[in-house]
């Protein structure tokens, strides 16, 4: 009942929030429309033309096929990086030795520009699934690692002492104490790394692969088809927004339900 009431109280605010978001989006579309009118359809097709092209791609099935191929690569890389990053970050947050080993590595990984990883991955993996997955892992791992590490360092020592006193075993300590605390650090990192994973995958596809949104972008560019290029860009953005607001944020609200009380 409490949850229902506070949910009701939040409704106007969230409506207002979405209204604000919508207004911003409309302003962007209006700017796009204006610029298109100013510079001509060849350089910058109007939003309507781009969405028309996207609709065509959707009806032919090309859009869904490309989006699925890209999503598979991005999500495999994202999940691998998340798993490894959380494990290593947790270790580095708890053990000084692990921190000494991992910290410089994370700094180096962060310092290498994503495009360099793409080039290396192309050379090493010759365009298989590993090419985008490796690139995604190399670019997102340090972010997840750093988040997990700072989370692991800020576990309440009084709760740790409680866990000691009640003899939590390793599994219970992980699932009842560390992970729930870590999640508030991890979710913002996941939202960032999902975006990076998605964009880096498109970039890798554009340069090295034969299918996926990136590859379609490359062929649209090759035929100087600005309309279709914009259509693919719109698809990239839409899928990313859908993943973030349809999957990650609802999941975050669910696991962090205790905060809202």
């Amino acid at each position, binding site marked *: 009942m409490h949850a229902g009431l506070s949910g009701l109280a939040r409704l106007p605010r969230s409506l207002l929030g979405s209204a604000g978001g919508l207004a911003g989006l409309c302003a962007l579309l209006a700017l796009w429309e204006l610029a298109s009118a100013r510079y001509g359809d060849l350089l910058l097709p109007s939003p309507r033309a781009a969405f028309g092209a996207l609709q065509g791609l959707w009806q032919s099935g090309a859009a869904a096929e490309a989006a699925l191929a890209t999503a598979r690569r991005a999500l495999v890389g994202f999940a691998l990086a998340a798993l490894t990053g959380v494990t290593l970050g947790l270790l580095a947050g708890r053990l000084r030795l692990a921190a000494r080993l991992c910290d410089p590595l994370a700094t180096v990984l962060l310092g290498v520009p994503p495009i360099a990883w793409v080039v290396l991955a192309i050379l090493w993996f010759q365009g298989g699934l590993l090419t985008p997955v490796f690139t995604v892992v190399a670019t997102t791992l340090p972010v997840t690692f750093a988040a997990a590490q700072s989370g692991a360092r800020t576990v309440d020592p009084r*709760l740790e002492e409680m866990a000691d*006193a*009640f*003899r939590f075993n390793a599994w219970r300590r992980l699932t009842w*104490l560390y992970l729930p*605390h870590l999640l508030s650090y991890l979710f913002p990192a996941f939202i960032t790394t999902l975006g990076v994973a998605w964009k880096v995958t498109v970039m890798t596809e554009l340069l090295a692969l034969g299918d996926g949104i990136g590859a379609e972008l490359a062929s649209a560019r090759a035929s100087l088809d600005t309309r279709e290029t914009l259509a693919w860009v719109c698809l990239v953005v839409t899928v990313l927004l859908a993943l973030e607001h349809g999957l990650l944020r609802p999941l975050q609200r669910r696991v*962090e339900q*205790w905060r809202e009380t």
Partner: protein
Amino acid sequence: MLRLDGIRHGFGAGDVLGGVDVTVHPGEIVCLIGASGCGKSTLLRVAAGLLRPDAGTVTNRFGSHAPVFQEPRLLPWRRVLDNVHLGGDAGTARRLLVDLGLEDYLDAYPAQLSGGMQQRVAIARAFARDTPLLLLDEPFGALDPTRRGSLQRELRHRCIEQNRAALFVTHDLPEAVRLGDRIAVLGSSPARIVDEVHCTAAGGDDAAAFTGAADLLRRPAVHAAFTLANEEASP
């Protein structure tokens, strides 16, 4: 039986604990009193095995124990019932919570409860363990006097009923008189046991508790332990 023998411990300059001996027999409630900051909590952490003393031995023949801390220390992301069973028997946990008047809050998160209710949950958590020894570190310090009284009675009643021993740390003399079968007085800097009293007023009413506390304060060692510490605190 829990036996602390010649426990010494220091943090940096000087000893906090200067050779403390305490014994808790099965089914016995021992109250450890002393002025604030005299090292009572440190001693309790030694007894709980959470802190290794510089010298002295801890012999715990009870096997296991369950703690109640000064603060509730509940997992904020777990519901009340989970916080009590901690993965163990949910039935026992539920019964305990109902007995402690928390039946409406089994599925609440700790943040939805008042401080007093949270501390009740922490007590239920300790009683939910099947252990013959409880270690309590001023668990009622943050509560108002009425709640304090009812929880003290509840605690003593349960310990006797289930034949559990308890080492109860407090700086509140009437509380010690209400709860303890035996009261051990800890002097400060460095802390050691300066007096020990077998108590007969435990479980009595408020008047008995205050009379008992006044009697205790008339004992020179107890008087010294409390007044000296206060003078040091406010020069």
